[in-house]
């Protein structure tokens, strides 16, 4: 069996010439950059006051909402917000709660009173403790222990905030985009009403075609995150369609990755424009 090996190399930056016009106003800063000297502004997350000047403390994009200035970091641990959907892994079992690892600064807690069933969970952020740890709950039937599937880890800042995070893709798989950067791919369940949201995890073998679709999707997600493309259902779908021309294992090769990403970006720009 032939094996291909590549040495790590610098990613080539892909830019689309004509489309940069609407992205010129992105104000990128690094820690220590002065954002403004105007004192009329409120300072938000990611900034600090350095003798009357508003300075950035993280590397990212400046966001202005009326008189509030904050910096959204490009790479960060997950900061919980109430109402977010996250995918986590149970790391500890304590007396009345589970500790869940969710790629944030502190482990999240899942209280016994917040679950319908035991196990490793897909959960929703219920509240945030003052130190930043999030408290989860899995009250609705949509949430719960996840069955067979694939976990993909990306940076939390790449997941776009949307109305719904559960997507059934037309190519035959389903996707859960957790706000914490953990993405779960799984085969679309056959019958539409899944009983009890996970008491019963089916251990039936998944068909080969479904497995191929999921593998291709996983490689697409890795390609998208390597090139820092915002992840949401449309972008993932376009990337999947662009990758159909290649073999699944070729998607991870840098030059093919660039091709696919270029095509995806173009289609996304057309969609907006």
């Amino acid at each position, binding site marked *: 069996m032939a094996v291909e090996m590549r040495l790590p190399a610098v990613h080539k930056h892909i830019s689309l010439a004509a489309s940069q016009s609407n992205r010129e106003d992105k104000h990128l800063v690094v820690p220590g950059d002065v954002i403004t000297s105007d004192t009329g502004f*409120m300072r*938000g997350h990611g900034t600090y006051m350095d003798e009357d000047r508003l300075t950035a403390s993280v590397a990212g994009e400046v966001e202005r*909402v009326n*008189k*509030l200035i904050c910096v959204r970091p490009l790479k960060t641990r997950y900061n919980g917000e109430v109402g977010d959907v996250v995918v986590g892994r149970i790391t500890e079992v304590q007396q009345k709660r589970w500790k869940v690892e969710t790629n944030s600064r502190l482990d999240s807690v899942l209280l016994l009173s917040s679950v319908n069933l035991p196990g490793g969970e897909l959960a*929703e952020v219920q509240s945030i403790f003052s130190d930043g740890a999030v408290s989860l709950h899995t009250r*609705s039937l949509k949430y719960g222990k996840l069955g067979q599937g694939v976990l993909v880890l990306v940076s939390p800042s790449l997941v776009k905030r*949307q109305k719904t995070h559960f997507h059934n893709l037309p190519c035959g798989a389903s996707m859960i985009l957790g706000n914490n950067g953990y993405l779960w791919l799984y085969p679309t369940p056959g019958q539409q009403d899944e009983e009890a949201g996970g008491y019963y995890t089916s251990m039936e073998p998944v068909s080969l075609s479904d497995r191929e679709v999921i593998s291709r999707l996983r490689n697409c997600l890795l390609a998208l995150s390597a090139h820092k493309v915002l992840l949401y259902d449309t972008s993932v779908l376009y990337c999947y369609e662009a990758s159909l021309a290649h073999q699944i294992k070729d998607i991870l090769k840098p030059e093919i990755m660039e091709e696919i990403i270029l095509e995806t970006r173009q289609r996304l720009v057309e969609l907006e424009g």
Partner: protein
Amino acid sequence: MAGRAGRRGLDATGTVIILCKAGVHDMGDLHAMMLGKPTVLQSQFRLTYTMILNLLRVEALRVTDMMRRSFSENHRDTQAHEKRISELRNTLSTLPPLDTEGQLSDLLSYYHTITELRITTESLQRAVLESVNGLKALSVGRVVIVNNGQHRNALGVILQVSNDAVNRTFTALIICEKGNEEAAGDDLSNKALHPIYSTTLFIPEGPCSHTVQKLKLQDISAITAKTLKVIPERIIDNYNKRQQPRFRLDPPGQAISTATQELLRLAEANPNGITTLDPVNDLHLKGVDVVEGVMRQRVLQDSLKDFHCIHSPTFTEQFARVQERMSVQEELDKLLFLVSDQSLTLLPEYHQRIKVLEALQYVDSTGAVQLKGRVACQISSHELLLTELLFENTLSPLAPEESAALLSCLVFTQNTQIDPHITNTLQEGINQVLNVAQRIGELQRDCGIAQTAEDFVAQFKFGLTEVVYCWARGMPFAEIAQLTDVQEGTIVRCIQRLDEVLKEVRQAARIVGDSVLGSKMERASLAIRRDIVFTASLYTH
């Protein structure tokens, strides 16, 4: 009154306990308590921005689900509707299928055309009757064409017009077959559509007979251009006399016979239809609806000739089936609409509020909650104003005491006579608050919410600004009570609620990431939380 116990929709019975402390009440009182008329329950459900934003944050719930469960929708009687819907669905599935082959292929469109024609004609007739000229035309002696369950395009002459303007009836002499004089009892045959639209007049095959009947407006399908000279009283008297059993076999009087002969002659002279009065040209009705209605009617009548299905041998039977199926379908559609989301009474207000939220950028166009929206979720009252103030940085130039004084406008709802003395910075702050409130009020008005901008701005009253400012700076309670004419209890209550508002602003500052504002709010809270205003109450926890 005792019928109020129990949970709405869940319990079938409830328990009421009447506690008699000073002896049992007398019978009259007890009777009123148990069986008297209770106060009418009215839903106080209000759609607030906070509620909408909180529900939008959670994926599992929709705002329409919440609205549907409120008491204000209780009148919708969804269970009865659901039952009827399933009944109708069953009926629909058991109806015989339609045969739409060959000549009958345009049966459905024919049905729709006929229905539209009928509706247009009815509305035109109503317009005719409401007009002065129309009423003048429908006077004694006018020949009309009668079309109802009993008579089919039969000629009649008007004898009397009732005075009742709401339900005008016309007594008329109509020619008919011998033996068909009595009115058909059931109204249902009136409602059934005649499948074929034709204008051929009815000519009796046997000996001509007549009947005098009271007609409603729907029975008169057209007003002809002819009038007859008749003596209405004689005709009516004669007819009524012959209705009595003693005179039943008498021959009809001369007036009646002449009139009947005239009508018959008219019918035979114009077998294919007689000229009728045109609403636009003859009756001079110039309204836009009337003119358009007449044109549409003509178009529809012309198009009827082009349909093939009327020539099919099984036409009448198939038409009846179509009619049955369509009426069930229409009822089903109406009920489905009533139980659906579209008929919620609060739905238009919900859409208006979402528009306001989108315009202020609290939610984006897809419905995902933005930073401003997340801040507004923390605030329980006057959420829009407070969030806008936060993001406009109004509180930063003010000292903690001044910001507490400024925020007192959110909790104080009374009018005062004494104007407070306010410092300049505070006055600027007040002006800014009023500007923001004006902006929000106008935006709400533009999006359709039924509250004027002035009403919105007038909600915020600054009567307690001086009082709170002095209290926060440490003045004793006895002195601040003298500064204003507001009662002491109101002052205490307002300052307590102000403390809660400050806590909410502190939460909001934490979400936004501004620690300066957070600490300022905390200092303000400490400044007002002292002394008699915050002493623990003897009555509450």
